[in-house]
């Protein structure tokens, strides 16, 4: 069983990858990059990598990620100070980690997004 910190890192990696794949399919974003001279030719390879990455994440967290991402676009959002940067609600002190190393997977009680502590 994966520990929470590793799972959170996998979720962030998945989200970064999803953003890259989404922008590679989006005609506007793709066009902007290609106009600058960058190649975006191996999207299928990234899709395969995405599948393998998703297999490493426990079903509970993966399902939550997929559900929240479908609703909001981004499932994992940063927290600055005590504010969820997804919905901008101040989080209760009870879920704020004392140190960065304490970081574990927490969910915003207001919007349901997965929180990533900066």
């Amino acid at each position, binding site marked *: 069983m994966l520990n929470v910190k590793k799972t959170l890192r996998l979720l962030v990696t998945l989200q970064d990858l999803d953003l890259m794949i989404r922008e590679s399919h989006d005609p506007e974003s793709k066009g902007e990059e290609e106009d600058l001279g960058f190649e975006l030719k*191996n999207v299928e390879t990234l899709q395969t990598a995405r599948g393998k990455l998703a297999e490493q994440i426990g079903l509970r967290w993966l399902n939550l990620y997929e559900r929240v991402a479908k609703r909001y676009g*981004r499932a994992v959002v940063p927290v600055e100070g005590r504010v969820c940067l997804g919905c901008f609600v101040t989080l209760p002190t009870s879920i704020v980690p004392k140190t960065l190393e304490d970081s574990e997977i927490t969910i915003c009680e207001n919007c349901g997004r997965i929180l990533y502590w900066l």
Partner: protein
Amino acid sequence: MTKETKLAACFESALFIPNLRATDRLQALEEMVECLYENGRVRDKGLVLEMLRRREILGSTGIGKGIAIPHGRTLAAPELSILFARSIEGIDFDALDNKPVHLFFIIVAPPHDRSNIYLPVLGKIVEKVKESRIRRKLMKSEDSDELRKVFLADA
């Protein structure tokens, strides 16, 4: 503030590597990400490296003429950062023209990019480095002050 002034303001003195020790593509990315991490510009170097590595799989960011601009967005980057690095020897980066890369700009930004300057910054750098006189100056720049001047003076 002009676009050039905004871009020049993004170059920080600590994010300047005058001569990379790296001899291959992955080592180069690792060395540059390490510099970002040591200077507190990224929260987790593993996540940033993974994102940049996957971006290279999508297509090399070596755009030719000795230039590579690895870039991408990740939650591990709290704000937009630009790192400049140079390799005197040159590094095989699978560039479009198959030539070694000497000049690197790494650009990382958060997914939300609140200031919305990620793509404009990327575009401005590409526009500038297409000019051979700019590339020659970049090969000689000794620090970030000179780097800023290159981008400002040729605005």
